[in-house]
């Protein structure tokens, strides 16, 4: 028995797994199509690299283009399409090139075309917001170019090949290769073509020898053993007098010389040769001297002679303090302090930590990151140099900032904006730290020394920790921040930028959480516009707000449960709560829902409720769904809904409840442009009077409804669904007909069904391959008692829509009167129905999936 039970226990996970697989297959076959929610990217080693990096070679071993394989999974698995698309950043700083193509199932091949950085935005074809960024760094063993930088006390500068430089004391040259990893263990060699004009040491330090022009060349081999070189011309003008500005000489040598001999010595050994304006002995004059120091002057330039009693061995390349792994090599140059001393060949080098670096014949071979001390010793004289501290660093090859400009492609608007302010507890600040994304750093242990800059200091300032302070002048403008990698205090070409597009409302604040959101726009709080920088989990909040929302493509997610109902409002704006300084309201570029899915949210809440607002309201590029109504408008003066996806709601996409327009009252305007209507319980647009007055007949309540652009309607209804449409109406709006609402529902359903079956209406009826009848329910306006002014409907494209009045047949009127209605009931209801080409059928058919992809978003943006 025990064995039997143990065997059964071990079977349990197998049974569960098989059940899940079976269920998954059934759901995939029969359930409505599901969009992708997220994607996952893994490399060949099964490491998750989504929002991370991939390093691959430019060439394969056989010389063909390098390839790497990644695996992209779309979740959930039952999403109706696992198709993937990608875009490539076109910013200048991304110099690499690659292409991506599908191999099979979830396997994709990335082929390198050019070395350097590439930033990919990889996303699901069915849901643009299900995306991941991938930073591909294409390494190369071939140096594409070698550049010379010069550095002096004032700064550093990059030079083109053959550039003319003007010599300054302390000038040092650097050579940087691109790509840097192509150097490997090789060393950059410096050479001067004109030793009589200038000498260059192994590290690129220039010593003037004569007035003139010297060609200085940097040469290096890359990993393919190809030699590369570049050169500059260093001009030494006649204002350069001395080879050095300070020299050490042994006392017993120099003091033995008489004055003339001293001057002669300086003239012969320390003065640069000037053929055009030769320097004479007489030009050398002693300015001052003391026991240890002599200062001589020639043509206004001075040299200091320091006398030393004992010679010392010194490290003359003391300008080396930080060195980089695989950066072209460094040389430790050792010599005696005495200018006359000959270079010794008997030098031994000592390193405090051999794991960090080695020195062979002066050549420093860095091995690992770290700090160590080095010194040299003349084996013959036993003289030791001072100790020099060297820090070995690793140069970054690739990195990203915490935001990339491709991250700005969010939501329908494919835009990301920023407010001037951030919340710091209860206070406001306008400082923000951009930072770098450590997951993208390559190599992982690279030393990140960055120089942060902004493009316009009138708009913002930035410190060297990356803290940006935005100025009020930046409102409505763009501020570009650049982070440049610093190597040897030289600004390299490794640079990343991010552009902050500042929202044009100065009274806006960036919010990252529900609490901050409420603090910003919630009634009685800061009364500032909220710019979302993160999804918001609103739970069961019912929030009254007083200002605009810039969504940046994020989601405002409510989680209403059985305790919420049709009258609840997720975000409610009341005209009475608005301050005088608010001149318009904008709700743009976000997704808002009252529940996590259609069927759960369809009888709960209104996502956006706007009542009695006298100022213009723009609802732009939003996705509102999973609620009772997506947008509910009540007596608002001027509302524009544009470029939005509305629906998947229990009742309507937009529900208007407007008051009667008596003679004097000017009509309000509602403009609809480029809208996608998803499935709703009733029509997509429903208009009813704000409250039905049974003693008022024949008075219009319809504001002007202006329909422009396109309307993509997925809201098809068959006979069965039409029957259910009207039951959702609240009985209270029927006045004293409320008690016979069921009768009215049935009558209206019957009416519509008859319309559906009427052959005369065949142009608006779609018959699918199963011979089922469908009609697209775009709008329903309630007539009967109130009057609907048909001139209120201003259709830009009358070819697409049919405005159909539906008069109540006499038997319906009589029935209603029989049940107690006291008025004539002569006014028609109106339906706005979608027309289509009978031969080809509608562009959007019943049960078609609505992919939220860039193609649709682009159309919505108009």
């Amino acid at each position, binding site marked *: 028995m025990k064995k039997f*039970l143990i065997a059964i226990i*071990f079977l349990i996970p197998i*049974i569960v797994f098989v059940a899940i697989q079976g269920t998954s297959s059934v759901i995939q076959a029969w359930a409505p199509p599901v969009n992708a929610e997220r994607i996952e990217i893994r490399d060949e*080693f099964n490491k998750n690299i989504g929002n991370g990096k991939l390093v691959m070679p430019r060439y394969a071993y056989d010389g063909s283009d390098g390839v790497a394989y990644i695996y992209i999974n779309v979740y959930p698995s039952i999403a109706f399409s696992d198709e993937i698309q990608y875009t490539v950043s076109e910013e200048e700083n991304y110099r690499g090139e690659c292409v991506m193509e599908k191999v099979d199932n979830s396997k994709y091949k990335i082929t390198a075309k050019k070395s350097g950085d590439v930033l990919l935005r990889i996303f699901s074809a069915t849901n643009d917001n299900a995306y991941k960024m991938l930073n591909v760094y294409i390494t190369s063993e071939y140096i594409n170019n070698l550049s010379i930088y010069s550095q002096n006390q004032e700064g550093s500068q990059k030079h083109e090949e053959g550039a003319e430089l003007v010599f300054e004391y302390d000038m040092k040259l650097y050579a940087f290769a691109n790509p840097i990893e192509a150097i490997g263990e090789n060393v950059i060699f410096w050479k001067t073509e004109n030793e009589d004009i200038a000498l260059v040491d192994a590290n690129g330090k220039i010593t003037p020898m004569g007035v003139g022009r010297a060609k200085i060349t940097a040469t290096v081999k890359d990993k393919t053993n190809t030699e590369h070189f570049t050169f500059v011309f260093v001009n030494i003008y006649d204002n350069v007098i001395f080879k050095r500005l300070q020299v050490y000489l042994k006392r017993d040598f120099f003091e033995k010389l008489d004055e003339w001999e001293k001057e002669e010595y300086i003239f012969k050994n320390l003065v640069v040769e000037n053929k055009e304006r030769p320097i004479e002995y007489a030009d050398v004059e002693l300015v001052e001297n003391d026991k240890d120091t002599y200062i001589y002057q020639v043509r206004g330039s001075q040299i200091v002679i320091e006398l030393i009693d004992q010679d010392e061995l010194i490290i003359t390349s003391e300008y080396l303090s930080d060195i980089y792994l695989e950066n072209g090599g460094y040389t430790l140059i050792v010599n005696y302090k005495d200018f006359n001393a000959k270079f010794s060949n008997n030098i031994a080098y000592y390193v405090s930590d051999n794991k960090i670096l080695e020195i062979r014949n002066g050549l420093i071979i860095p091995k690992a990151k770290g700090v160590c001390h080095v010194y040299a010793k003349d084996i013959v004289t036993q003289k030791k140099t001072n100790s020099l501290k060297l820090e070995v660093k690793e140069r970054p090859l690739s990195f990203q900032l915490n935001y990339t400009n491709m991250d700005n492609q969010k939501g329908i608007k494919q835009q990301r904006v920023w407010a001037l302010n951030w919340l710091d507890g209860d206070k406001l600040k306008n400082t923000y730290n951009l930072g770098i994304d450590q997951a993208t750093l390559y190599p992982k242990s690279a030393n990140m020394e960055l120089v942060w800059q902004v493009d316009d200091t009138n708009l913002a300032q930035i410190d060297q920790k990356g803290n940006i302070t935005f100025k009020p002048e930046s409102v409505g403008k763009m501020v570009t921040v650049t982070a440049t990698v610093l190597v040897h205090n030289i600004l390299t070409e490794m640079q990343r930028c991010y552009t902050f597009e500042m929202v044009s409302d100065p009274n806006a604040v960036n919010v990252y959480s529900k609490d901050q959101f409420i603090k910003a726009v919630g009634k009685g709080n800061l009364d500032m516009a909220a710019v979302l920088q993160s999804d918001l989990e609103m739970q069961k909040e019912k929030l009254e707000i007083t200002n605009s929302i810039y969504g940046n493509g994020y989601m405002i997610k409510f989680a209403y449960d059985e305790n919420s109902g049709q009258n609840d409002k997720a975000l409610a704006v009341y005209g009475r709560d608005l301050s005088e300084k608010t001149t318009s309201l904008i709700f743009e570029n976000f997704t808002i829902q009252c529940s*996590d899915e259609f069927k759960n949210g369809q009888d709960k809440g209104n996502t956006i409720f706007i009542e009695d607002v006298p100022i213009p309201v723009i609802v732009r590029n939003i996705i509102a769904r999973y609620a009772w109504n997506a947008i509910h408008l009540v007596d608002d003066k001027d509302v524009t809904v544009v470029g939005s996806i509305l629906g998947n709601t229990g009742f309507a996409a937009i529900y208007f409840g407007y008051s009667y327009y008596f003679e004097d009252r000017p009509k309000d305007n509602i403009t609809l442009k480029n809208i996608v209507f998803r499935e709703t319980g009733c029509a997509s647009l429903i208009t009813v009077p704000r409250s039905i007055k049974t003693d008022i007949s024949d008075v219009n309540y319809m504001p002007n409804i202006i329909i422009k652009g396109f309307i993509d309607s997925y809201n098809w209804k068959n006979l069965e669904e039409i029957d259910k449409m009207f039951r959702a109406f609240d009985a209270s709006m029927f006045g004293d007909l409320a008690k016979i609402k069921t009768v009215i529902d049935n009558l209206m359903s019957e009416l519509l069904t008859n319309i559906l079956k009427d052959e005369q209406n065949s142009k608006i009826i779609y018959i699918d391959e199963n011979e089922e009848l469908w009609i697209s329910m775009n709008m329903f306006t309630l007539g009967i008692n109130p009057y609907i002014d048909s001139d209120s409907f201003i259709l830009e494209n009358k070819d697409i829509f049919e405005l159909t009045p539906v008069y109540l047949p006499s038997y319906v009127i009589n029935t209603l009167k029989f049940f107690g209605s006291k008025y004539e009931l002569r006014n028609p209801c109106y339906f706005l129905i979608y027309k289509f080409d009978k031969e080809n059928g509608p562009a959007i058919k019943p049960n078609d999936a609505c992919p939220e992809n860039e193609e649709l978003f682009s159309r919505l943006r108009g």
Partner: protein
Amino acid sequence: MNNIVTLLKMEFLNRFEKISIKGVKPVLKILITLAISAMFFWLILKGSGYFFRMFNKAGLAYEALVIYFTGAFLFLLITNISSTIKVLYFKGDNEILMRFPVSGWEVFWAKTIFLLIIQVALTSLVSIPLLIAYGQQVNVTASFYVSIPAVILFLVFIPFFLSNVLAIPFMHISNKIRHHYSFIILALTIVVTCIFLIYTLIFERIIVYIRDQELFSVFEDKTILIISQAIKYLIPTKYFAGIMLGEFDVTRVINRETMVVTVGSTRTMSYLVLAIILELSVIGSYLVIKKLYRKTLLSNIEAEGSAFKKHTKIKRRSEFSTLIYKEFIQVFRSINYSFQYFVLACSMPIMAYFCNRIALSIGMDNIGNKIIPGLTLMVMLIFNTIIVSFSATSTTREGSKFYHTKVMPVPIHKQLFVKFVMYALVSFLANTITIAIIILTKQMSTDDSFVFMKPLAIYLISIMISSGLTLIAMKMDIIKPKIALSGDGELTDSNSNTTTIVLIGFILSLLFGVAGMLIPYLLGVEFEIMFYALALFALTFLVFSLLFYFIRLKAAYNKIT
């Protein structure tokens, strides 16, 4: 010799009954047994194929074989110790055999040969498909297949002889602790839970491996290094792998670098080591048996049946309390029954939690969040079935004391009610702890908040189904009891009632679970409506169970003679 053969035949007859090919039923039984064996063979071949392929992908082919041999070795050692103790010392027929004109040695050899034959057969049945699967997945030479018989023989004989050495000490230990029932239950719970946990983790890795189309190693670099290091200490089982593979090169990718590593030990060394171990265990076994077998056998027969002595005061209790106490003690003081019931009930919360965790991870990736309630319900019902299966032997377990139940002055309904209460109480506790863990670990939450209503709803359905199944199981056992009158009276073999109730329970679990997963997607209804529907079905099932139980209950009970 004849006596040994005769005794051997008797052992086979006792265990397997006479095999007859006359008549449809016996032939059918043989065919079904063969079919099940073939299916078992195929399952092992397939399952182990995935297992070895997964390890091979990570460069752990050698380690996988060592892990198998270690598991098999430990399993055989434990079962051999248990079998040895049971067959050689505790078997009820020992009393009878000692009175026959056969020597103790003849009894010993007959039983020993019997055990060996069974072990060789079972080990071959499991190992051969497994090793064939290994050979299919890993690049092995012909000597791998040639060494299979040798490995099986080593695998059987070494544990066998070791078990003979260890059986007597184990018996003494078990005699010492056999009355520490709480400790035994706790220890067994921990062991069962740990084994299940390891199994589910491996299973999850296999699923990930299959789902990723077998492209990746499912082991992290760190895990590969830990496994490869740990294997070195598994003596003597690594030498079994040594016999089959010798020194073996494997390719591993660590920190994205590919390296070839030589693992294993030479065949010569492996044979030598195992031969030495075998020899030592034979010698040890001989010495132990020679000196101690008869003595232990006789002392055990005297001691058999009495676990411990305890002087207690006579307490006056109500009928209900007395009966429930008796039910509890009957299970509590039997290691067999404790394992079948209490241990599994105690393990259920942890096992259900881990099983659910893995299922949810697979389910949500495949389908989405809406699957959570249905899947959790299915997992809970499945584990409930395991616990409930014990009640399918509620009458059978009375054994030779069954007749007491008929003559005692307590109505049958009350006696059965007491049994039901005990099963319901344990099931209730197990379910309550399970659901508490699910709630506290936010396992059913999609946004990391505490969720109460859904788990409680599932809990309610589980309780109803569990109660219904318990009633059905009890009634089935009353209708067709399998009372054991010989031996020590304990029910150790599985019976058809248990199998049937497990089957019914699994079918119900799948029906409810799959319905719970499908309804939100296909019908688009909310959890509430789905819950009401499933609760209604559960209630209907409970009502049906009650009717099934109560109708003609007394008549069925009285029919048992």
